[in-house]
């Protein structure tokens, strides 16, 4: 429970802090508030879904596949 609280605080702090720092951006989208948070979350979910629903059905075989 304490871990959950700490983690939530960290999340919150990272979001709030963004509005107090001066960003030096190379691409326009970096200026969008919470861009990095959204990017991290979405990329993570896409990796999970891609691995589970695209790659796994293609490449998973029985454990002794190459021995047969």
């Amino acid at each position, binding site marked *: 429970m304490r871990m959950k609280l700490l*983690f939530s605080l960290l999340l919150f702090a990272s979001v709030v802090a*963004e509005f107090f720092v001066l960003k030096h951006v190379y691409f326009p989208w970096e200026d969008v508030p*919470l861009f*990095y*948070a959204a990017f*991290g979350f979405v990329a*993570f979910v896409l990796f999970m879904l891609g*691995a589970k629903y695209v790659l796994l059905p293609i490449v*998973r075989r029985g*454990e002794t596949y190459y021995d047969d």
Partner: protein
Amino acid sequence: MTISTFPPFMVFFAGALMVLLLKGRLRSAVLMCIPVIGFLNLISTPEGTHWTVHFLEHTLIFGKVDKLSLAFGAVYHLITLIAVIYSLHVRERGHHSVSLLLSGSGVGAVFSGDLISLFIFWEIMAVAGTLLVWMGSGRGAAPAGMRYFIVHLFGGLFFLFGALLHIQATGTADFGFIGLGSLASWLLFISFGINCAWPGLHAWIPDAYPQTTPAGAVFMWTFTTKTAVFVLLRAFPGTELLIWIGAVMAVFPVFFALIENNLRRVLAYGLINQLGFMVAGIGIGTPLSINGTVSHVICHILYNALLVMSMGAVLHRTGKIHCTDLGGLCKSMPLTTAFCIVGAVSISGFPLFSGFVSKSMVLEAAGIGQMAMVWILLMIAVIGDFQSVGIKVPYRAFFAHDAGLSPKEAPPHMLAAMGIAAFFCIAVGVYPSVLYAMLPYPVDFQPYTAAHVVTTCQLLLFGALAYLLFVRFGLLTPERRATNLDADWFYRKGAQAFMWVVNRPAARVAQWFSAAVFDRMPAFLAWFGRNPLAALKIGGDLILLFFSSGQHRQKIAQRIKQEKEIFPGDIMKRWPVGTSVLWVTMFLLAYLLVYYLK
């Protein structure tokens, strides 16, 4: 110029011989002394070109000492020290010797200044790597080692042909910037790419590396691929193709790592993805990106070794390495857990750890170059590292469901080795200026800006939030014992198909051929020789039979039957003069035709 130090590789090769003769504590002491002596030797060597040997009409350079080779050389010595400490429990003297041979050939390669000596070290590295795979105890070690050897022989051939063509075209064996263009450069490019595990050429890493012993793994995970990065840095900086190769190889292994059950295979995919950052940095080719690649090599070698060592310790103590067999080890192996987490946090690039100060240089270089797509791919790869290695490895081994294992904590020498690596991971993260002083170009880069720290934290923390949600709702991919196919499918199944062709149709043709040549033909000649004239007559009648029909045909068949029955019959049978005249005329005609057509 004569100098008082030795070529750096010599210390290792001499050590590799010496440990074969020693036993017990003395051997352990010598093992630890070798990288230390090597390092002292290295730092007393001034920059410049040393130890040149004339060979045929070329010059072999065993000491091209500049900032680039010194950076690689220094971290190779450090990791060798860490790895030999980690491997002190190994009893087989051959194991120590081969490990040092691998280190030494890596060191030799980064200091060699010509293609010929580089090729020699390249091949020694392939042989030493193969031997290290074969020393693995698993059932799959022998065939995996063989595949490793074949892949590297193949790569070596590309190197050899490329080098020969290059030397012939330029008239010199010197190894420096080559750049893509000629056939020779492409051959060298591909041979470097095989050792650097480019997409499609990468499958030997997850195939062979997880088969090594825990101690051998630390050496394997370090030298071959990073030496490939080094030669790319020397020969192909600023090659645009490398940017895309790097960006792709930073992303695709993450998917494979996520569905992999064997944690050392997860780390093998993690290695490929880390190489992606380096290769992309070489491709961008600006001083910042080259600095980024070199600093990433240094940081990566250390945190990757730390992760490999922690998994090695788990394998050493439990004999298990699959997610499905592990879990809950944090209680029985708390120190190993802590070291693994340091490695995991470093590879994920959290502030205050080494990954943060090196990865960001390559990303910054992509940003300055306005390479939007590359930047996005590398950013995705940062999340991929965090997810596939940073979270998955420690979580599955030390936390997750308790598998009921309660092994002892890792042996002291393993803990010491992990401790040294962990120390450097944190030290470099906290004081990056130590790292930046080693880089080939002057560094004008500040990783610890408020914005950079905040955005990185946001990126990673929200990634972690996604993970927690997946765990909370039970959406994680269930781990199962399985074989996940990769590009090695093509040559493993390809080889099986080849063997089928060899064993079935090809073998049948060969059988028929050998029967025809060795059985039927001599038998026929023997039969023919018993009475050539009668045999010719039978042959002539057979031809007649072929063209005839009806009653006539029956008559001829009858005659052949009779002839065969009385064969060989009377050899001295007299032939009419007319026949002889006919033969003579035919021969003369043949002679005339040959003479005329000639």
